[in-house]
């Protein structure tokens, strides 16, 4: 927090002293003013971006969950799918986004597809790791108690995979906002990405900075939301942390 404040102060100083021309690096105060002046447009565009990000994230996480489930159940499918999944992650988003626009138009669909493409992977990998990290002795214990495969999954494997799942989800949440902005930037009618292209062509750099900060803030907000969900889903972890702090 203190580091951020110092950084902002230095920035303001550099800008006021005129070391860098104003139009290239606006002062933080100007950025703040631009943000306030344009708050209506920013708010409306944020809603569009958030809507895309949210929808894409939900679809991406669901798809990621499905992949993880199938690949965990069958080693054959694991070997078959894994390389394909990795390859989907090597495709540059900026290259595929215009193609998606070409195929699906300027509306929601291409954005959601792009977000699904970037978000399902961390979730799948997280879950797969989680499923594999399950204690084999615990599986044996449950089996010795006559548990079915389904019961072993719900009582043991799914809860054991929660920490890795949330790590994946945190990454996916951050990607979803960035993915939405990129796909808007490359073709769309609304959203923070479209706003960015507009202020860029108007050389309104203070607005550019304002929207960059807004996008960061939205990403951080989503990640905080994931953190909150994580704490709700795993109350036993909080206890452990508190005890660790007590013993220090």
């Amino acid at each position, binding site marked *: 927090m203190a580091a951020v404040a110092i950084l902002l102060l230095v920035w303001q100083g550099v800008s006021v002293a005129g070391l860098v021309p104003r139009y290239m690096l606006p002062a933080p105060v100007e950025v703040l003013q631009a943000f306030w002046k344009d708050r209506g447009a920013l708010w409306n565009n944020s809603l569009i971006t958030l809507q895309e990000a949210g929808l894409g994230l939900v679809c991406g996480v669901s798809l990621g969950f499905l992949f993880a489930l199938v690949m965990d159940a069958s080693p054959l499918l694991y070997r078959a799918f894994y390389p394909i999944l990795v390859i989907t992650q090597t495709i540059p988003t900026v290259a595929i986004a215009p193609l998606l626009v070409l195929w699906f138009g300027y509306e929601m669909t291409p954005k959601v597809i792009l977000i699904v493409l970037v978000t399902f992977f961390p979730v799948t990998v997280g879950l797969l790791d989680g499923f594999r990290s399950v204690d084999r002795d615990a599986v044996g214990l449950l089996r*010795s*108690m*006559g548990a079915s495969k389904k*019961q072993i999954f719900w*009582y*043991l494997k799914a809860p054991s995979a929660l920490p890795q799942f949330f790590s994946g989800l945190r990454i996916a949440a951050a990607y979803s906002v960035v993915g939405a902005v990129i796909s808007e930037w490359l073709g769309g009618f609304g959203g923070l990405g479209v706003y960015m292209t507009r202020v860029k062509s108007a050389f309104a750099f203070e607005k550019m900075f304002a929207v960059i900060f807004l996008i960061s803030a939205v990403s951080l907000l989503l990640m905080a939301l994931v953190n909150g969900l994580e704490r709700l889903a795993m109350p036993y972890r909080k*206890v*452990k942390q508190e005890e660790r702090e007590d013993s220090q």
Partner: protein
Amino acid sequence: MELLEVRNVSKSFDGRPVLEDVSLTLRKGELVSLLGVSGGGKTTLFHIISGLLLPDRGQVFLEGEEVTGQPGKVSYMLQKDLLLPHRTIQDNVALPLLLKGVPKKEARSRAAALFEEFGLGGTEKLWPSQLSGGMRQRAALLRTYLFSQNVALLDEPFSALDTLTKSAIHRWYLEVMERIRLSTLFITHDVDEAILLSDRIYLLSGQPGTVREEIVIDKPRPRSPEFALTDEFLAYKRRILQGLGQY
């Protein structure tokens, strides 16, 4: 009739024999130990008895009925307590009931009725990470008991505990066992522990593992820790170490 009988069980992994013609019995209310060096196939034998593994040859009988290769008949407790970190103690303990399809409320109340008996009063709503090693083992034992009231297989359940905790939990275990009339088959590599706790001891040794000797400890239970200092105890110990080829 024997409560549990293992008849002529043999098992090999990838052509390497691990168990050869092992037979043993457990009667009601007895505590019987399987004593042998590590890697002697004791755990494999437990996997076979609990139905997790199929033997190559031989059978397992529970109260006269064949249960070879059928999990869910006898309860099994390991050195690791394996309490699930994401469930409270009461929900961990009630797990075997939930797996059998008992409704959650009933499972909890049946478990709750035994918390005091097992010295776990007040821990119902805690997470496993909040309990000490000894308490966790008690919870694991209560879970074992709720799963099956007749036979418990304990695989070195106390070996991870320190000596003092261990002797306290030994005394406690024998008391509880007496009260709830639990019959126990017990794996250990600790000779003193086996003599102190058991009615009978099977010496399992060799490659592949086979029963070398059956030793009856003819001394009423519970035995005080002082028993470990008597000549009688030492005579048993000498015999066991000779039987295991360690003396």
